[in-house]
């Protein structure tokens, strides 16, 4: 807070001369405006280009009901037809399991950091570890789970193993965003609750977490968006299957990223290329729907102050 007052000298050290010739200053102002608008336009080019490519190449398969209700069983790269049902369900199932494991740990961990351990050395250690976890590349997380799940325990490759490795990737995202949201809860709310004699745990469960609920949900969705697009863990920890398999504890499983990965080697063939872009568009749409859903949940769950 004191830093705020020191803030003014803190920038560059060169005070701006506001009394100078207005021509030069106006020119600088215009130049800055032009540059900023230019930056925006430059950023829009790849954005529109990529989205345009994916949408224009992928949309027509999505209009077909089969895409949402059928698998790729018996469909080879040279053949049209089939759908992405197996991959959509695989992606949803694996990310749902990931969320079920990661979210409680992440939320409770954030509660610890904000409500219990604030400022302590133990909390700093936890914080430090989360930073490390943020730096784990997906392929390393996958190799780790492979070593534990298959080499040590001798299990088969299944969807659940993928979920375990995705937990490692999702945990830091959700924990960090939840932590920020809990920090935003005004102390007055906690104090009012304590003043009424409500025990701390109830205060957290009934006042703090519900207040931050919308933000937590948004964080969870951001984490989900990240893990849904991951490819490496799927390649290493579960085989791709063109068939419908809804059991995460047995057998190979389809998923949208691995579906793209299978067909991307055959982009010279139209049917395969169509499916690659359609699967990519489906994945983007899934993330988009989840985001919209998250925003809705956040909006409806927000505590109205009046």
């Amino acid at each position, binding site marked *: 807070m004191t830093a705020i007052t020191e803030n003014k000298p803190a920038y560059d050290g060169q005070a701006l001369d506001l009394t100078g010739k207005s021509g030069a200053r106006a020119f600088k102002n215009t130049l800055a405006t032009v540059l900023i608008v230019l930056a925006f336009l430059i950023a829009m080019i790849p954005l529109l280009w990529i989205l345009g490519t994916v949408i224009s190449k992928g949309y027509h398969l999505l209009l077909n009901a089969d895409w*949402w*209700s059928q698998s790729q069983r018996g469909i080879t790269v040279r053949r049209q037809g089939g759908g992405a049902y197996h991959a959509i369900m695989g992606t949803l199932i694996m990310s749902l399991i990931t969320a079920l494991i990661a979210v409680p740990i992440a939320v409770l961990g954030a509660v610890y950091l904000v409500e219990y351990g604030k400022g302590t050395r133990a909390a700093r250690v936890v914080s430090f570890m989360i930073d490390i976890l943020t730096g784990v590349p997906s392929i390393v997380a996958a190799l780790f789970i492979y070593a534990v799940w298959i080499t040590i325990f001798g299990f088969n490759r299944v969807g659940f193993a993928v979920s375990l490795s995705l937990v490692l990737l999702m945990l830091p995202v959700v924990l960090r965003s939840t932590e920020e949201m809990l920090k935003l809860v005004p102390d007055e709310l906690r104090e009012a609750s304590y003043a009424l004699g409500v025990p701390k745990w109830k205060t957290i469960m009934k006042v703090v977490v519900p207040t931050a609920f919308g933000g937590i949900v948004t964080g969870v969705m951001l984490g989900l968006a990240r893990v849904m697009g991951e490819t490496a863990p799927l390649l290493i920890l579960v*085989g791709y299957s063109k068939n419908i398999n809804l059991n995460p504890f047995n057998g*190979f499983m389809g998923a949208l990223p691995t579906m793209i990965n299978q067909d991307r080697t055959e982009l010279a063939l139209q049917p395969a290329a169509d499916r690659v872009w359609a699967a990519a568009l489906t994945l983007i749409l899934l993330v988009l729907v989840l985001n919209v859903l998250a925003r809705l949940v956040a909006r409806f769950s927000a505590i109205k102050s009046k």
Partner: protein
Amino acid sequence: MSVNRLLRVGSVAVASLGVLALSACGSDPEPSGSSSPGSSTSSAGAECPQGTLNAEGSSAQKNAIDEVISKYNEKCADVTVNYNPTGSGAGVKQFNANQVDFAGSDSALKPDEMTAATKRCGGNPAIDLPMVIGPVAIAINVDGVDKFVLDGPTAAKIFQGTIKTWNDPAIAKLNPGVTFPSAPISVFFRSDESGTTENFTKYLKASGGGAWTGEPAKKWTGTGAGKEKSAGVAEGVKSTKNSITYVEWSYAVDNKLTIAQIDNGSGTPIELTADSAGKALAAAQPAGTGSDLALKLDYATKAAGAYPIILVTYEIACTKGLPAEKTALVKSFLSYFVSKDGQASLTDLNYAPLPAEIQTKVDAAIQAIS
């Protein structure tokens, strides 16, 4: 107020669950093979078991096995076969780690791999079954050149990096009447370890006349720029002028690349066809012991009309020791794969069918699995 909020949260949650549930209900139909609409489930005879078969390995046979699985499902609709084209090494590793029921590999099992495989099969040896012949094409992208001839030594020099430009006299000599640019040759190779590289370098070593200095290996030791997988090198050549690579035939065809004819020393350049590739396999010698059918290919063959650069993908399976239902599945699927029906579907995909003689041997070996 909090009750209201809970209600709202609840209703959103229920709504989203409902969407999920709906999507879960409204779908399960599986498309039957395109050629036979309607249900073919009733055809499940005595030779059609039920269950799921998982396999993994060579990406060279990916398109072949996908096609055969699709055809096989028209016959046996209750069998699910999954094949993951992650690479020969991965296939053998997963097979030995008991993760898959059979593996596809571009090279026969090495002695130590065989030891591990025997252990995995409960003390019974595993077997190499030659199943798919994938010719390797030398593909180029040079403006104005749509017919191109190479021989072993020249190819070896190009891929070794001793011939650096397209207008080299050695190339001109093989291609009279064709004008080449003076541009440098961009070579693309597989950056991942692959059976294609191993077989191609075996050819360069055998017929390169000493111009290829490295040992044949899955990892590339020549010149050039590496690209990931067959798709990567094919895309590289397609998008780069004055470039050359080695790649499975089907990728060269699908990407509309110019495929080199090979002069194997017999005097006439040999075009890559299913027929000419099959001739090279006919010249191969058996290398396996006992019932093992590993082949020793003769990459330096001078047989007339034989295209010498081929790659044989083996299916690796246990001779004994799998659970009974898995054994039935493996036998059923692999015997379909080697059958006339199974092999016939491969020619359209730019693979060469197994010669009849080898087909018989492989079928006998599959029937002996118990």
